[in-house]
């Protein structure tokens, strides 16, 4: 084959041009409700990076070494969500037990994450695009960072908007969606920046 997909290209693409939130609309629910505050957004964003970077390779292992050998690919939806839920639960318990400050800043966001569609989305994309283990890890990490950047940027903008005059019907989700639209356009502009070949 004449040149293949480089893992590094996927890493950068998943942060910028193919930002999981801005091009695939994944993780919108928590994005809209949490992005009001910069501090909470940062906490949730870091938690998302962590969970995505770990569950994506984890699901890769489960898929390649458990589901495929037994011909159970069609059960992947259930299995992935169980893996994610169990992993999040375990991490929460571990953090709570060993580090009180970390739990206060990060742990409280973990339950919110199980219902974040972006996490499951990344695992499903990883399967359909037939990534290798290493690429899956970079893809998970990159998507997490991309989500993090999107939410803190949005939180920063929304804090500035607090004093702005907005038409009453647009307040809250309306204006957030419009800003997200502009951000999506801006992020598309990154496509010329990374030379792949």
């Amino acid at each position, binding site marked *: *084959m*004449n040149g293949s*997909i480089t893992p590094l290209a996927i890493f950068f693409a998943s942060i910028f*041009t193919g930002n999981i939130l801005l*091009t695939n609309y994944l993780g919108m629910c928590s994005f809209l409700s949490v992005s009001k505050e910069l501090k909470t957004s940062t906490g949730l964003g870091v938690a998302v990076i962590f969970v995505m970077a770990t569950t994506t390779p984890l699901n890769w292992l489960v898929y390649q070494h458990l589901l495929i050998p037994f011909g159970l690919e069609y059960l992947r939806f259930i299995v992935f969500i169980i893996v994610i839920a169990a992993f999040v639960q375990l991490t929460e318990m571990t953090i709570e037990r060993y580090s009180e400050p970390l739990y206060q800043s990060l742990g409280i966001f973990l339950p919110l994450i199980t219902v974040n569609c972006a996490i499951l989305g990344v695992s499903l994309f990883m399967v359909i*695009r037939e990534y290798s283990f290493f690429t899956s890890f970079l893809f998970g990490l990159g998507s997490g960072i991309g989500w993090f950047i999107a939410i803190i940027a949005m939180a920063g903008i929304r804090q500035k908007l607090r004093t702005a005059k907005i038409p009453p019907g647009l307040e809250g989700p309306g204006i957030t969606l419009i800003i997200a639209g502009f951000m999506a356009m801006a992020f*598309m502009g990154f496509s010329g920046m990374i030379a792949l070949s």
Partner: protein
Amino acid sequence: MIKQATFYKKRIYPLLFMFLVTVICILITSGLFLSTQERATANELSFTRRAILDAGGLEYTPTTEGIEKTYKEKVQVEDGGTYYTAETAEGKRYILPMQGPGLWGTIAIMVGLEEDLTTFSGLAIVSQNETPGLGGRIEEPWFTQQFQGKKSPFTLVNEGTADAPNEVDAITGATRTSEYFRNLTNRASTDAKRIIRGE
């Protein structure tokens, strides 16, 4: 006695319940999966054959039977499936399965070539994972059909401005995917010459 009852209620019952639900769920989905598996495999085959017909520029009725009929009549598998040939009124067509990298994953296509192995008779996407609404638009008919009658190597021009026989429309907002796609299609002619004529 009371203690035993609460133990059952608190520990055993939830486990039993969960186990039962899981078993029922898996039985239902497995049953459905196994009963439709044959159909799904047949669909997959029909999909590939349709891509071959599209690439060769052959006319067919767009049903499973129609695809099957035309495929059996017109298409010959050559060299154990490395390429296919088809006879049409306008001459022989060579159809080559190809794959290459896209932005997100592998793009697999069928390329149909005329006898000079440079002019495209058609092109069909077998699988792709590009961003929906951006690179994913390579699957849209206007994009694949524009290759018909064009001569490789191709140059990309802005969407909607392709004119010369070696120009193809790129997709606005999906520069990367368009470039990857051009690289893939540009390889078709040399690959075909090597495989078919041994050049």
